[in-house]
């Protein structure tokens, strides 16, 4: 009855259909917001403690710019976009190729971090308990690395089911959410890199 009555504004909207945003999209967006809040505190802690360590080693003595690792991680953001496009168009072969490239680049980044930590611990004798720099450095970089690992687990999972013959095209939405998460991890690295290796050094 009330439906029959016309009124301004809404009649138009309702006739055209009632569209709400996709819940996955909104969900992943706010997940990224809350993760950012988490990272912010670690970054702040790092910034506050720059130069406050009472004893060495200091960042300028032991930190080298991880140029190669950074390039790898950032370019994995590009390959994952290519993979996403390939999947959207249904080119499963191309998707697999780009996806493997993404994983390889991510692995390279993790390996580089591992090598860096090994050098810091065994050559420079910087551990998490050595000084404030050690504590904040391992925490912040470690927090980021743990996010990379989580991303890697999901990337590998997708790769596994794809090669097992699962119709991954049907899950395009979810693959896209994963790629957004991956972009977020990359963006955080830009911040971490700036804070730790540029400002902090």
């Amino acid at each position, binding site marked *: 009855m009330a439906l029959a009555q016309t009124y301004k504004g809404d009649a138009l909207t309702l006739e055209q259909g009632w569209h709400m945003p996709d819940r996955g999209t909104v969900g992943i967006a*706010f997940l990224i917001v809350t993760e950012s809040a988490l990272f912010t505190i670690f970054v702040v*802690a790092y910034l506050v403690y720059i130069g406050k360590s009472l004893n060495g080693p200091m960042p300028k003595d032991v930190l080298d710019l991880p140029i190669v690792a950074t390039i790898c991680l950032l370019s994995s953001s590009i390959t994952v976009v290519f993979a996403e496009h390939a999947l959207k168009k249904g080119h499963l072969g191309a998707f697999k190729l780009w996806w493997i490239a993404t994983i390889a680049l991510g692995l390279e980044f993790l390996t580089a971090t591992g090598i860096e930590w090994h050098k810091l611990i065994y050559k420079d004798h910087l551990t998490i308990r050595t000084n404030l720099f050690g504590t904040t450095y391992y925490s912040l970089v470690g927090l980021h690395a743990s996010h990379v690992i989580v991303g890697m687990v999901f990337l590998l999972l997708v790769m596994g089911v794809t090669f097992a013959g699962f119709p991954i095209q049907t899950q395009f939405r979810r693959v896209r959410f994963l790629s957004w998460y991956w972009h977020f991890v990359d963006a955080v690295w830009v911040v971490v890199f700036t804070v730790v290796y540029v400002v902090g050094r």
Partner: protein
Amino acid sequence: MASIDYPLERPRPKEGEFSFSETLYRWVATVDHKRLGLMYIVTALLFLVIAGLMASVMRLQLAFPNNHVVGPETFNRLFTMHGTTMVFLVGMPFVAGLSNYLVPLMIGARDMAFPRLNAFGYWIFLFGGLLLYFSYIGGGGLSGHGSAPDVGWFAYAPLTSKAFSRGASTDFWILGILVAGIGSVASALNVIVTTICMRCPGMTLTRMPMFVWVMLIDSWLIIIALPPLTAAQVMLLIDRFLGGNFFNTQAGGSAVLWQHFFWIFGHPEVYILIFPAFAILSEVIPIFSRKPLFGRAAMVGAVVAIGFISLGVWAHHMFAVGMTSWSNTFFAASSMLVGIPTGIKIFNWTATMYGGKLRLDTPMLFCCAFLLQFLVAGLTGIMLAVSPFDWQLHDSYFVVGHFHFTLIGGLVFGLFAGMYYWFPKATGKLLCEKLGRWNFWLFVIGFETTFIPMHFLGILGMPRRIYTYAPDRGWDFWNLVSSLGVIAQAAAIALFIWNVIDSIRSGEKAGDDPWDGWTLEWATSSPPPEYNFEKLPVVRSSRPLWDLKHPHDPDWKFEQ
């Protein structure tokens, strides 16, 4: 439209028709937002009773000077667990429970956006709570002392470092809250996505019920403010287990940094806790005044403003740590700014009542008491925001009085209003009105008797968190009065629980719309079916049921 006769008494499938294991399965495996909402609320009530008992023991200890009901260790554990429980295991699940139960119903959705995540959120909250309480028996607890945390709910560094907090008590505090916090974030995320993505046709943001608006902002605050606490707790874990130096003053770390991190979470948290009460009042007052909410836009704006400003006021908890005069001035100023939107809210609620026809049933009585008590809490809050005054009042019993006026006089009174108001929706039975009035008046009397004297004690120089005091400091009388009030409060809570049990068993049938409501939850049956609405409703104003009830004078003609 033809008139159809509907029998009020209709056969309904009852829970009793299922076997015990089936019923258990229907609750434990459920992903239904209404069941989860009720589970949250029942759990919260359970923890409320536990934390209330702890408070009673503390008041008993403080009733007389040099009292020996409990020793210092026990007392310190009591106030730590009382505060922690009330904030994380009572306040937070109430937020989650109310928004879970009501938001989908109010926006005309069948469920939350992520039903399984919702179930996960409840269970991990519950396990977090249990982990925290496990500290009474775990970690060396059975061997006599109990290792419940005793560092205060704020857990200031460096009291939490290994050097000053041996054993596992602080770890239980960290982990219990960290685990429960995952649940809070999950449920808040869910509420946000549900509100943004699941509204029924025609439910634009401007038509969304005020309750949903407030819960949306509340959830936004949760996902912004809880991660800082989690981050700080992870740092503390790193300090305690890996030998990190975040809060190690020996290695140049800063004890004040913890305070900053904690209050960046802690102050918004206070607003996270009080917002559900705002949400409830914004629904109950209009219905019982028979008028729409006065100045809806301003009310939404005020909540957004509070949510925004509250992120920038944290250091008013730290006026005594020796910040620069500029920081003190900044945080005093920003804290006082919160008073402006809060004032707007109180004025608009009052204006909603003004010119109405107030039905002073129990829910409305609680709202009226809320307005007066929250006004006092707001004004004492202004006093505390004035940094020089705060140097005297900080960490004194005045502060205890202030935030109990906010959280009991505000939040808990609001929650009671909400529980009396929506109980018929959730159970199909009305709560007994007569017991409700007894409950209300006992609670008011007990509340005022307990918490008004605390303000005086603060002015007489009594610090917080002391387990005993000497007889000649002038604190005896008001402490005794304060403790006596607990009796009436406990009676009120007991009465409420009895009312709930009795009404579920043999209460008056409520019907689907006992209060003559205007929002969508009253358009479905009580209790609602699993799918909420057989056919998703279409709305065209902020009061869809008013439109239906007044076909000649609907809101949408006016509201656009």
